[in-house]
């Protein structure tokens, strides 16, 4: 029993093969399709935004939760993805879906190139270097000699993707379903990575870099590649976002975006991939929630939304120190424990449970990438 309670959400990467994850994906797809045909256009836009954040958060979590490097500048790669896609669409007439792999590729390169030297820094110093990236980005996008491409302060307008092949969908439904497909694919890939040899190398470098190197892990290479992958995820998210919103402007990519992503990752749960859905929901809805909450106090309190946001954040960190994914996992373990106690016909299995093997393993596998 104690083995179950003791397993932390970060302990992940036992090979999770076979169909362990098919049910979760099937459930998510069904829920998504149900939403697509029942929610209003405005809500679908918000849900699509959630899925986009989820993609960016998964990438950030690969970097921070699994590989242990911090980035306060993830929004910069989101910006590159967004602006890159917008420029490709607006100036070069590239199809919107084609901008996704292109920006994935470019952002991987940018992330790898930035990561190679920057990852020599550690802890706070790395945090500062990435923060500098986040601070620089809006300035670059605003730079007036780039105006011809970026549209300067007023930004760049792009045509929103149209529904192809006369599918019986409206534009909001189509975009939402595209984001759903993209999010599921990116999640699937991240799960593959985490449960592989490189995934274990990432976690090993986080837990004990010297021991990992002694086992033959090429630290510089794995860490820079991981940074590149995280940037790739942010780039894809940014490109999708540009298509969804139909507009990019420097203001959308302020430092606050980078910080929001960090918040979303921690709230969702470090080292949990499905948890990034919860983190994305937090990023998308809690600021609005805080807004409407503080409206109840009238106009007198202009800064109140941020205070409310802060209170929400602190409450979550106190109630769920391992993020929402960690809390969910503890509830599941608790319910399982109750069920084991409640059904006496399970007693023949109890010795196996106290030997600590089977249940811990099951728990471990669901933890993994959950």
């Amino acid at each position, binding site marked *: 029993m104690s083995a179950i309670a003791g397993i932390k959400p970060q*302990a992940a990467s036992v090979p999770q093969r076979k169909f362990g994850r098919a049910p979760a994906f099937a459930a998510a797809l069904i829920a998504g399709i149900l939403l697509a045909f029942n929610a209003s256009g405005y809500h679908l836009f918000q849900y699509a935004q959630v899925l986009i954040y989820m993609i960016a958060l998964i990438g950030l979590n690969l970097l921070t939760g699994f590989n242990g490097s911090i980035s306060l500048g993830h929004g910069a790669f989101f910006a590159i993805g967004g602006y890159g896609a917008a420029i490709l669409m607006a100036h070069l007439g590239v199809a919107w879906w084609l901008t996704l792999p292109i920006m994935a590729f470019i952002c991987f390169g940018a992330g790898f190139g930035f990561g190679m030297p920057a990852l020599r820094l550690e802890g706070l110093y790395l945090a500062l270097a990435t923060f500098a990236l986040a601070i620089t980005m809006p300035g670059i996008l605003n730079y007036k000699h780039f105006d011809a491409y970026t549209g300067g302060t007023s930004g760049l307008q792009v045509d929103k993707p149209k529904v192809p092949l006369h599918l019986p969908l409206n534009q909001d439904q189509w975009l939402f379903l595209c984001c759903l497909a993209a999010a599921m694919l990116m999640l699937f890939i991240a799960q593959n990575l985490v449960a592989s040899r490189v995934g274990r190398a990432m976690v090993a470098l986080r837990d004990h870099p010297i021991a990992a190197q002694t086992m033959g892990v090429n630290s510089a290479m794995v860490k820079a*590649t991981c940074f590149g992958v995280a940037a790739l995820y942010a780039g894809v998210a940014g490109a999708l976002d540009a298509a969804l919103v139909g507009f990019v402007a420097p203001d959308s990519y302020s430092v606050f975006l980078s910080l929001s992503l960090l918040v979303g990752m921690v709230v969702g749960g470090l080292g949990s991939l499905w948890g990034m859905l919860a983190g994305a929901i937090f990023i998308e809805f809690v600021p609005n929630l805080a807004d409407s909450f503080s409206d109840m106090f009238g106009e007198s309190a202009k800064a109140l939304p941020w205070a409310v946001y802060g209170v929400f954040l602190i409450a979550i960190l106190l109630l769920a120190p391992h993020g929402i994914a960690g809390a969910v996992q503890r509830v599941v373990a608790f319910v399982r424990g109750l069920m084991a106690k409640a059904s006496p016909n399970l007693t023949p299995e109890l010795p196996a449970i106290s030997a600590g093997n089977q249940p*811990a393993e099951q728990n471990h596998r669901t933890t993994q990438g959950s």
Partner: protein
Amino acid sequence: MRESAPLLDVVGVSMRFGGIVALKDVSFSLAPEKICGLIGPNGAGKTTLFNCLSRLYDVSEGSITFAGTSLLGLHRHDIARLGIARTFQNVALFNEMSVLENVMVGAHGLGRAGFVAAALRRRAERDEEKLILARAESLIEEFGLNAIAHRAVGQLPFGTRKRVEMARALAMNPRLLLLDEPAAGLNHEEVEGLIAEIRAIRDRRKVAVLLVEHHMNLVMRVSDQVVALNFGRVIADGTPAHVQADAQVLKAYLGDEAA
């Protein structure tokens, strides 16, 4: 005395940290499939020597050759593939990972698949993964760790963690195993078990062992050769009986006790 070409050849190695001389002109060699005890009082430089062999430290002077290859031009992460594995004095496991995963990281060098192959789960990657898993599982079986294979290592007692570390070190089928104080924290019975285990590892896997240990009884019983260090210098090198009787060794240890 040495019949075959040495597996490991350490020649004139010095290691300085600022003003501290941790190793001074250390030379010795180790034949394949032999067990060599490395002894010396605290601070003699034993762990420092291991760290030079692992390329964690850059030696100030000298050369280290393993199976005809100079180690000094290699990266840290090349050492495992070359056939040198180690454990650490203070246990250096991946605490959030399970026992099985730790041993699987030990088998890292058995695979080549990178991020793309893993992301797409290519056939070659899956085959490698099976190989790595099979190797790890057989070691876990061998070290009697089955019952805790899926537990996070951070929660395990010190002695068990040391066993996990040894299993992890063997995952690459090394030709040289460096053990840094494997008997630390073990009781009398467990030390007996360890002696049998070290011998079995050598006999079955044809691996040479370089063994740092303060437990003299263990070292003298298990070793074919003993190298004694004091203040970073080799003060004796020979059979256990020879080193045990060496005047300088006696003085180093008695002096240590008297201090």
